[in-house]
């Protein structure tokens, strides 16, 4: 007759771990769901296409997104001038390539550490770089160009820019050019991080003109980004393929031969035209057909679901670590041991007092230089999110423990229970119940904060969105979709978490 209640006896902290496990299962379940959508949607990973019949395989490292040289098309395939060029040359010359899409800096690192044989990434040939690398013949002459809104009839040249704001990309050739000439033409330079942001600024009237890399700009116009060019391009550097000094000379020779053949038989010009359109294009008639909003949704859905999956996975990983930190250091924080208490206190002060982004850059870019070993983006991302949220969770746990009536501890201790037993069986189960709503809240904050990881190139939801509108320039609609996805995911998560809370904490 009393067997059933006995089963339930002394649930203690088991309920906590059960609760966390359930919450995790929830996050991972959602991630898996998002993942299924991806796989049923379209293959997200670029596949190494090797059509060559004989010869060696070269590992070619490249950037992740530098349209129109390399970027992912709507099916997730890595395409662009660089990609088409290397594939065509490989075909004519009879070698195979294995493309590694790593990001520009990582690609160069891979080359240096011989993880890759060559880098093709819209890389300007400079004297400095020639000290370290050997380059193929230049395959593209770059430069910068100015663009204005398609319907702007007032600006016909640089002299019309007086009093205007000119958008440029931070650290680009365009920025250098714009600053050099700012006082001459009397305009103000405003530097931002992304091409798509600059274009939106011009379209929204926050800036009157943009000066950017000519191929990037030309590609944008073919995609119907709503701009046009009115001035000629300013000749700049040339792009080449880099190999380590003195190595892979057979590859360099083959590339040069293949490039020469393409220039002769006209395939080279055809390739450029495919991505850049005709010279001096106004964008009229380009972007052959503009997708409807629902077409856009269908097209970008696989990439966005991949982003959602990554967002949920990294949040789940970081949440586990953060919860461990929160509980352990939360207990330290209320510990009578002064040293433990101060360790927890200092940890909280540091991570609550510094922005998430600083840590993201620190773990991903700073720490590898300190320890001389690369850190995976997942680890860096999870550390960033968990250490930040952990600090808040320490305070949540501390607050919850301290809000349990002191009589509870006294009651337990008066029976002869040790402090540890009392915490585990009496205080923590009550604290968990008190803390649960705040913990759920912290989980939601963490999920949203994970979007900051796009700054280090982590492929989460907002990052994927940026990749999409960097290629198709449908900024507003893409961001709207992202907002809806976040909202649905978070609403679902909180709803389920609250049901779990009620079930498990009665």
């Amino acid at each position, binding site marked *: 007759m009393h067997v059933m209640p006995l089963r339930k006896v002394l649930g203690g902290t088991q309920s906590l771990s059960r609760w966390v496990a359930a919450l995790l299962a929830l996050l991972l379940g959602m991630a898996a769901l998002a993942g299924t959508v991806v796989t049923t949607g379209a293959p997200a990973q670029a596949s190494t296409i090797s059509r060559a019949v004989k010869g060696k395989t070269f590992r070619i490292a490249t950037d992740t997104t530098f349209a129109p040289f390399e970027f992912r098309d709507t099916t997730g395939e890595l395409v662009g001038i660089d990609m088409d060029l290397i594939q065509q040359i490989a075909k004519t010359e009879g070698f195979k390539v294995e493309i590694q899409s790593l990001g520009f800096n990582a690609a160069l690192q891979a080359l240096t550490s011989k993880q890759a044989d060559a880098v093709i990434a819209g890389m300007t040939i400079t004297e400095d770089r020639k000290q370290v690398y050997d380059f193929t013949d230049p395959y593209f002459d770059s430069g910068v160009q100015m663009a204005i809104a398609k319907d702007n009839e007032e600006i016909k040249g640089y002299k019309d820019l007086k009093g205007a704001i000119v958008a440029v990309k931070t650290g680009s050739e365009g920025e250098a050019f714009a600053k050099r000439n700012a006082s001459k033409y009397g305009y103000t330079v405003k530097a931002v991080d992304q091409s798509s942001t600059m274009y939106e600024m011009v379209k929204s009237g926050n800036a009157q003109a943009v000066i950017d890399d000519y191929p990037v700009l030309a590609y944008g116009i073919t995609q119907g980004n709503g701009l046009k060019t009115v001035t000629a391009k300013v000749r700049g550097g040339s792009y080449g393929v880099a190999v380590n000094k003195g190595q892979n000379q057979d590859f360099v020779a083959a590339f040069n031969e293949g490039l020469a053949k393409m220039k002769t038989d006209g395939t080279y010009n055809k390739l450029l035209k495919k991505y850049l359109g005709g010279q001096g294009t106004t964008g009229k008639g380009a972007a052959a057909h503009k997708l409807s909003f629902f077409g856009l949704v269908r097209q970008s859905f696989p990439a966005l679901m991949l982003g959602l999956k990554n967002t949920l996975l990294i949040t789940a990983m970081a949440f586990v670590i953060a919860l461990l930190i929160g509980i352990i250091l939360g207990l330290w924080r209320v510990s009578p041991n002064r040293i433990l208490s101060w360790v927890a206190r200092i940890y909280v002060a540091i991570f609550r007092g510094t922005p998430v982004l600083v840590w993201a850059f620190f773990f991903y870019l700073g720490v590898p230089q300190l320890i001389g070993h690369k850190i995976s983006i997942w680890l860096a991302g999870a550390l960033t999110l968990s250490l930040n949220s952990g600090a808040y969770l320490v305070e949540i746990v501390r607050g919850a423990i301290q809000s349990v009536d002191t009589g509870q501890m006294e009651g337990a201790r008066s*029976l002869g229970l040790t402090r540890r037993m009392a915490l585990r069986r009496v205080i923590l189960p009550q604290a968990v119940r008190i803390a649960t709503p705040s913990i759920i809240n912290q989980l939601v904050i963490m999920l949203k904060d994970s979007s900051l990881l796009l700054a280090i190139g982590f492929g989460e939801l907002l990052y994927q969105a940026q990749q999409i509108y960097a290629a198709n320039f449908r900024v507003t609609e893409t961001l709207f979709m992202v907002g809806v996805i976040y909202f649905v995911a978070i609403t679902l998560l909180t709803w389920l978490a609250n049901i779990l809370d009620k079930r498990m904490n009665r």
Partner: protein
Amino acid sequence: MNQTLNRTKSELEDSAMDTSRLTQRIRQTQQSDEQGQTGVAIMIKDLHKRYGDTEVLKGIDMEVKSGEVISIIGPSGAGKSTLLRCINALERPSSGSVTVYGMDLSDPKTNIDKVREHVGMVFQHFNLFPNMSVAENIMLAPRMLHKTPKEDAYQQALDLLEIVGLKEKADVRPTDLSGGQQQRVAIARALAMNPAVMLFDEATSALDPEMVGDVLEVIRSLAEGGMTMILVTHEMGFAREVSSRVIFTDAGVIEEEGTPEQIFGTPQSPRLRSFLSKVL
């Protein structure tokens, strides 16, 4: 009811479960008690307790013999509760010593947790654990500290609940009980460790008047069962009835002590007389 209590007490004496030095001392004390000699259960010497600049206890000397029922009375702020809490080390003395069955609580080598197992305490606000059922509250300490099997601990909890008249409430949550019921569960919980001494800290002060009777009834039966007890109480009638000795504290010192007849019948000090005139 008394039979059950006596059984609990004899179980303590027969128990081969804990052969610690403390248990042996308690057994010796109780045996000497039964042989007509009186063993000392608690010895307090020159006990001082300060909170910052405020001195709450200003040199308390007192001795409690095994089997005694002692009531501590006095006005609010006299340090009654602090004195009681020093006996199971919930408060650490600023100076002086508290010895429980020969174990000096201020000695760093003394295992305070082990001493507390033998000193049951009942609080003004019950301090039951809301995350457990009534039975689980009672079973917790025996399960954790004596590794009593679940079924045995549950049976013991039922027996104890029967003593306090709440057997049918074993599987409800404490929050579903009235104050008086909760306090009786708290008493049962304290008894689960077979304590040698019971401390009651204003056990009926937080109760509605109609609930007080039931709780006092349980305490009375414990006293009649021979349990060594110290009560801090405002129930003067009850103190007079059950106590073997009454201690009147005021402003951190023991102002007067004696039999209930002496304290309530022929109070000597003016402060005690004025106190009694206010509360009686």
